[in-house]
């Protein structure tokens, strides 16, 4: 199973810690190089970091090549936009977005979007991402 993660944030670290050992392949896409993240993860065989300055233009291609997509950048607007763009292209693929603003999080949750908040990380072990 190939899981693609878009964006590097504290939540990216957190989720990789939770599901990293349960997944065959994780591709982490970022528009810029994050040296701390690379240092921490470059030795892990199942994790590939892809720096793609044109990430926004390649969402469709990424969604076509992934089994599951987690959108975890620090930008709520990017996450929401990418989520809806991917869902619009490929409704069947499991897509989850991180939303840090609580009002936005509640709004998207009420619209039945698959959304996670940094304030609720402790409530889940995120293994459902792998199992579902």
């Amino acid at each position, binding site marked *: 199973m190939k899981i693609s993660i878009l964006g590097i944030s504290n939540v990216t670290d957190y989720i990789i810690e939770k599901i990293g050992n349960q997944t065959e392949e994780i591709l982490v896409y970022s528009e810029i190089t994050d040296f701390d993240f690379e240092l921490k993860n470059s030795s892990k065989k199942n994790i590939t970091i892809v720096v793609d300055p044109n990430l926004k233009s390649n969402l469709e291609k990424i969604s076509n090549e992934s089994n599951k997509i987690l959108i975890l950048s620090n930008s709520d607007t990017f996450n*929401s936009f990418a989520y809806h763009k991917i869902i619009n292209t490929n409704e069947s693929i499991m897509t989850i977005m991180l939303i840090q603003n609580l009002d936005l999080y509640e709004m998207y949750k009420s619209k039945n979007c698959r959304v996670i908040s940094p304030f609720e990380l402790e409530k889940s072990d995120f293994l459902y991402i792998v199992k579902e």
Partner: protein
Amino acid sequence: MYIIISGSNNITLDLAKKLIAEGHEITFIDPDKNKSDEIEKNIGFVSLVGTSYNKNSLIEAGIERADIFVASNINDEINFVATHVAKNLNEEITTINLINNIDNKNIFLGDEFDYIVEFDEIISGNLHSFISEKSEQIVYTNTDNHTEIVIIDAGKGSDLIGKSVEELNLPSESEIIAIISSSGTIEHNFANTINPLDKILIQIPIRYKAND
């Protein structure tokens, strides 16, 4: 009407001036304090420093009583999310979105997006109208009655094609003299629609251009 505009730029400033002149109430939301100060200085109405996808900023701007929300930032992501929040706070509001990148058009099609305006379409439309003007040719100017005779070439792809004479939106006091088909037939019966390569012979007042 009460209109909230997210994003200040040349387009929205010009729009705001026109709307105020028509008696509408406007509030701008922009995160840039300098832009906000400039709006206050030049146009003199309320401008709010804030983020347009932030619920509190929209509530402070009066989104619940607003009639129209215009999302016209240069960033499609901000326009997209701001419109979601605006519609979520006021289901009755009419939303208008500027799309900067045409590749993003397909996701601005949900219930939240009442009207979308494509930046590329505006530019190409304007360019097309300039190019179309080149196909006009003044053949005679009558300074006594201040009219000129103009030939408009419909060409192969002009937006005139398929329109009836009534739909041509000519200036008042204009008169169509003849329509010359590509085969050379001169038509004085204007019941038919304009065909590709037709040439339209029109008398118009001098002060107008033919497609004004």
